[in-house]
């Protein structure tokens, strides 16, 4: 489900079936690598949306966790920890975090949830068909990770 009032109505009525959170980690920066930063967030958002479409009935996409690239690792970790803590408190058993920012990869084991790190592919120059194929391929692999975790965890 998406973070929209219409879909939250369904969520509230079928809460026991929805135990998975999809969270995008989106960096913000205005410096020389601004474009790269933007495309990181864009790519992981597109991918998250696609995963949501396929697994609509068991997942909830919440607004992205946005952070400044200039923030220190400790600060980011602390803030994200507050988010995941809140999610756990509300009974979500699976948390998947999608990002293209490699900084998270280095501190993966400190996160409360599964980090899915996918290097950003510049989608903007691709023609529609190729773009579709690439996304399908990526989606398939990520779906596998999610459903595997469901099977082992439930």
């Amino acid at each position, binding site marked *: 489900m998406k973070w929209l009032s219409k879909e939250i109505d*369904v969520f509230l009525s*079928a809460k026991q*079936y*929805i135990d998975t959170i999809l969270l995008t980690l989106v960096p913000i920066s205005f410096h020389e690598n601004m474009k790269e930063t933007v495309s990181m967030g864009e790519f992981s958002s597109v991918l998250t949306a696609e995963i949501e*479409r*396929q*697994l*609509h*009935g*068991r997942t909830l996409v919440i607004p992205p966790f946005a952070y400044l690239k200039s923030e220190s690792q400790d600060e980011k970790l602390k803030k994200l920890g507050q988010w995941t803590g809140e999610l756990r408190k509300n009974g979500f058993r699976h948390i998947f975090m999608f990002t293209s920012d490699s900084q998270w990869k280095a501190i993966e084991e400190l996160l409360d949830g599964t980090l899915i790190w996918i290097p950003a592919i510049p989608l903007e120059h691709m023609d529609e068909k190729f773009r*579709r194929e690439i996304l399908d391929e990526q989606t398939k692999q990520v*779906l596998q990770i999610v*459903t595997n975790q*469901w099977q082992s965890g439930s």
Partner: protein
Amino acid sequence: MAKKNEITRRQFLNYTLMGTGGFMAAGMLMPMVRFAIDPILKTEAASDMVDIDLRVEDITTEPIMKKFKVNQVDGWHESEVEQAAFVYKNDDGEIVALSPVCKHLGCTVDWGTNPAYPDEFYCPCHAGRYYKDGVQVPGTAPLAPLDVYEMEIRDGKVFLGKTLPHPKA
């Protein structure tokens, strides 16, 4: 003093002013109202069947997932939405197009992905299962069969329209 049926100069001027004023107001308001209710006035497109780029001779008894784009108009907002269908020939040789959207909570089902049930549609979210004809397996999560697409064959190509409830629903 004016006679009974005669109108005074003042009245005449009042009437003419009201008349022209009314026309001017109507002239301004009409296009605005038309704009406001525009989507209602438009007739529905004669054919909203979509070519899904699949030839009849390529369809086998094995369901294949075919993705296609549909223009969705929501009031003024027009957008392209991706949809998918499972297309196959049933035992009677009829072509069937099923919607892959699980009737439980809307995940996308897949054909034969669960090794335990190779000849069924399987939903990864809550282990929902459907037989090949789209009817749900009793006792699994879904409470209704998969929707079917409105279908037409033109020049050997498959065209799909809206989704309709399954005939066995």
